């Protein structure tokens, strides 16, 4: 793992050595928690043939939407595409392979890799087409579906605040998949608005301990504005 005193780096350096064909987890549920600046750097950096794992496809022309529209994503592992008609279009015309998982199972498959397990047993989806696609096992007379852990080469996460060791604090509903993905990839790149010295974050307030984080990148708060939409309802 990256040494504690070598984690702070600039955004281009963090993204540059991600290879073509990489599997990349991306935090966020809709816009909150989406690492927009890291995704923009990935777009600029040029990697192709990516497999992305994200709860959703953001909205058209923001976040991973940009990468999908640029034809850089081959496979998307997700829960729901409802807010991105371009992603649905790409799926329907066959240019984007999409694998769907129920949202909570997607979260657990990621967490499962993050804690070093191989999979877990669930009853979610029994009696539906979700269960037909997976192997099952009987334990003490109960039939469970086996869900395998979902790993990635890289995770891109967004945190409100960090320190230079890589301790992370998330905020409000910008947490979502970020703490799970921050455990589950070989290399974890965190973007944050503010990088403090070790000791500046209250120990009880840290959501992701630094042990899981490989690199920390400071980004401007304005980078998240691309996710802002008109207030509805």
């Amino acid at each position, binding site marked *: 793992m990256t040494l504690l005193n070598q984690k702070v780096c600039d955004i281009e350096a963090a993204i540059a050595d991600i290879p073509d064909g990489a599997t990349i987890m991306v935090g966020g549920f809709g816009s909150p928690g989406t690492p927009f600046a890291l995704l923009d750097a990935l777009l600029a950096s040029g990697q192709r043939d990516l497999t992305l794992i994200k709860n959703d496809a953001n909205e058209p022309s923001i976040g991973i939407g940009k990468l999908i529209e640029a034809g850089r994503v081959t496979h998307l592992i997700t829960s729901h595409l409802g807010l991105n008609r371009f992603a649905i279009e790409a799926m329907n015309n066959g240019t984007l392979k999409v694998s769907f998982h129920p949202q*909570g199972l997607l979260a657990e498959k990621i967490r499962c890799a993050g804690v070093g397990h191989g999979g877990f047993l669930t009853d979610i989806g029994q009696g*539906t087409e*979700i269960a037909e696609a997976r192997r099952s096992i009987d334990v003490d007379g109960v039939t469970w579906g086996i869900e395998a852990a979902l790993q990635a080469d890289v995770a891109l996460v967004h945190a409100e605040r960090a320190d230079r060791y890589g301790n992370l604090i998330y905020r409000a509903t910008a947490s979502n998949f970020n703490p799970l993905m921050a455990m589950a990839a070989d290399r974890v790149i965190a973007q944050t608005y503010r990088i403090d010295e070790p000791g500046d974050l209250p120990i009880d307030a840290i959501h992701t301990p630094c042990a899981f984080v490989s690199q920390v990148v400071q980004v401007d708060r304005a980078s998240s504005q691309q996710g802002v939409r008109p207030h509805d309802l």
Partner: protein
Amino acid sequence: MISDQQRMLTRAAREVIDGQIVNLGIGLPTRLFHYLPDDMDVLVHSENGVLGCRLLDSGEQPDIDMIDSGGTYITTRAGASVFDSATSFAMIRRSRVDLTFMGAFEVDQQGNLANWKIPGKFSPGIGGAMELAQKVARLVVLCSHNDKHGNPKILSRCQLPLTASRCVSRIITEKAVMDVTPEGLDVVEIAEGLSVEALREATDATLLIDESRLGRF
């Protein structure tokens, strides 16, 4: 005069018991926010990781880090908490959410629900609907009684891919309030002014109707 939707929402709000944790599905159920009395100890769960959502007051500035699962900017009420997606769904799978309202493409008299996929036409993914439908302690479907072509959505057996089987407790439409029972859908209330015959005609399921105790709404 109040609309059918307003009448359904007013009726649906009466399902909520003081002290409960409630999840509001996307679409019409989300509008129940407007019908929950402020003075109740009720926390609204949203599966993106918040318990205790409330709508922004008019003029209140949105916080870009604070949305519900439908993408609406929300805020929180006293007693709220935020958490990651794993914790959010643990709450759901452990049936710690007491009540959820969901829309339906189809719902049948066995309590089966189909609301996520129309093969060849609509398949944006399952989201959190499957886990909510299967595991929340009480599921109330809130939907129009018929589709836009007038076809019944309340059926003897769902044709579309299921969200979850035998998960629905009660169905509220603009025409009736119906409970799932082993013998069929027990009609507990019928819309003001609607005849029993008109209800039967609009429905493709076994309806149990005892006019002597039939409420109106």
